[in-house]
């Protein structure tokens, strides 16, 4: 009994945390290059709708994931055009991008609402998936879940142990200095924005192809903004983003699980739990938040001419 409750809770936490993790990883890369993207919600929606419609049309969830990632990346390049090439305000452009994504994805997805598809298949790891509790929690998921934590570690390595990552972080700290050191801030920021978009798109795909297995307008329901907050929570570090996404996803799973269990607490109060928990952790753990932020975050690189 306890095992099944725990197993259900943990597997729910991992499942609802996965899209948050991908989205947070994308935002970390973008912000490390100095770009805040409040339009992440729109990027996720574009990924979700592209992944869903592609899967419905082709019958292949793999193509769906690729299409979703690509759609997210391309859509974010549009954002890049405004904030990098046109030097527009990042916050305003991000919000515009979000509304644009909400509307555009709704138009594109409207003919496919209610379409049925298999979605991402569960890949059971032989033997391990039969273990009690642990098997269910760790070894009965789809590929995107298995790849989420390795992706976070790989991005951490890319950012902190490679020349490319060094250049990217330099642009985020001080683009003028990076430029003087021979880096091309525009190119690096475009690269960062594209990868961020791909990850945001994959986050959306996981929502539409795995978690809900359906498409509905604005189905991200604020997860894009939660991811932006989780970046601060994880102090702009991809590996710390794992715990942030798990904590938030876990809090959602926990509050629903507690209701299903019949714990006598008001559903309104339980609905606040994820946010209260995050606030609590920020209060206890926060402190150094400001110092961890990239130096030129949110500022527009004015070029050197």
């Amino acid at each position, binding site marked *: 009994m306890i095992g099944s409750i725990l197993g259900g809770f943990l597997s729910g936490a991992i499942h609802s945390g996965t899209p948050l993790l991908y989205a947070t990883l994308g935002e970390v890369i973008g912000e490390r290059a100095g770009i805040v993207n409040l339009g992440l919600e729109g990027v996720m929606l574009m990924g979700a709708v592209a992944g869903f419609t592609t899967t419905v049309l082709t019958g292949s969830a793999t193509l769906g994931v690729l299409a979703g990632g690509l759609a997210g990346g391309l859509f974010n390049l549009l954002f890049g055009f405004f904030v990098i090439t046109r030097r527009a305000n990042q916050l305003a452009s991000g919000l*515009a991008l979000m509304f644009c994504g909400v509307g555009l994805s709704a138009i594109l997805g409207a003919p496919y609402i209610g379409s049925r598809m298999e979605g991402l298949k569960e890949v059971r790891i032989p033997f391990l998936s039969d273990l009690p509790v642990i098997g269910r929690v760790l070894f009965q998921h789809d590929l995107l879940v298995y790849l989420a934590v390795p992706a976070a570690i790989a991005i951490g390595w890319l950012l902190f142990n490679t020349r490319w990552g060094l250049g990217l972080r330099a642009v985020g700290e001080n683009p003028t200095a990076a430029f003087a050191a021979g880096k091309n801030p525009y190119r690096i920021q475009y690269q960062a924005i594209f990868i961020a978009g791909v990850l945001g798109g994959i986050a959306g795909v996981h929502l539409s192809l795995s978690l809900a297995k359906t498409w509905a307008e604005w189905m991200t329901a604020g997860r894009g903004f939660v991811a932006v907050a989780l970046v601060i929570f994880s102090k702009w570090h991809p590996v710390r983003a794992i715990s942030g996404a798990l904590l938030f996803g876990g809090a959602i799973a926990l509050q629903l699980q507690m209701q299903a269990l019949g714990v006598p607490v008001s559903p309104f109060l339980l609905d606040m739990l994820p946010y209260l928990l995050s606030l609590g952790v920020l209060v206890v753990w926060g402190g150094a938040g400001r110092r961890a932020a990239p130096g030129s975050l949110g500022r527009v690189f004015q070029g050197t001419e």
Partner: protein
Amino acid sequence: MGKKNFKMGMGFLALLSALMFMLVTTTSARASSEPKLKVGILHIGSIADAGYNQAHAEGAQIMKKNLPGVEVIGVENVPEGADAERVMENMIKQGAKLIIPASFGYLDPALRVSKKYPDIKFVHPGGYKRAPNLGTYWASTPEAFYLMGIAAGKTTKTNKMGYVVALPISFFLANINAFQIGARSVNPSVETRVVFTGTFLDPGKEATAANALLDQGVDVLGVIVDSPITVVQTAEKRNAYSVGYHYLGVQKFAPKGWISGIAFTWGELYTRFAKQVMDGTWKSENLLGNLSSDYLTIAPFGPAVSADAAKLVNAKKQEFISGKSQVFQGPIKDNKGVERLKAGEVWPMENLGKMDFLIEGVIGQAR
């Protein structure tokens, strides 16, 4: 890089996003001859949600088919508030004489517009306020939920059933209570667990909620959110039974585990409204239908429902229609042990809005 360019860029972006966000899709066709009547209908979400919105949209389409010469102007995804008022005025400018603002939150915007245009008729689903040119309509659902409870209570193997519900508002609490009372009438050891998601549309959360209930051993899932697709599909995937709501066509999302569903079939009612407006006999009233109305329908039973259960459901349906049976008949205790109805007392249907508790046997928190 001039400031002008920047402004142009931002202006373009703002325009683009505004256009996208409005997302106004009209389904009116250009008729060569002047239509006999134009009907405007506003939807809060997508009309393909296999749920609340699709039920209204199909009602309008059936009306159009029943009455040649009637034209429908349908607009999806209209936010409640000032946007709804603008859309209604726009429809009136296009010549609409009957407006169906098909969401609970359109009531106040519709009342404001109805004052401005006394010649235009409005019918609002579920409204609690009326005007000389604004009538309301809805169907009382607890009896139908009671019937679903009978079918589900006879079908469950674990004696645990679950409901994924948007919010703990009184009408939804009444539906859950009715479901449990119906189930208990045929299966005394059955229980219903409720999870509230806090929103009418978040498929991700609905899936997580459904899974949480299934993890507790629940083998029947019902749903009260705008689109039942996610919950019903999740139940089907994990070999549980499901009960639909809102729309008649939910069964295709869970063919194996389908029990039955409650559906609003507005077509004939909308046809009557349109006819009344055309011949001038329409008057503002508060229509509250029940199981005998043609706009509240019990969906066909699925393969899991036994003939015995189907017979019980049909017999009880007749008792409700004839008035022989009541859903909320005392004694009724809430799930905190407090007696809410004494033996012999009946909770009147017009007081459903005051039901603020979940009954014994329902596991969940009403507040």
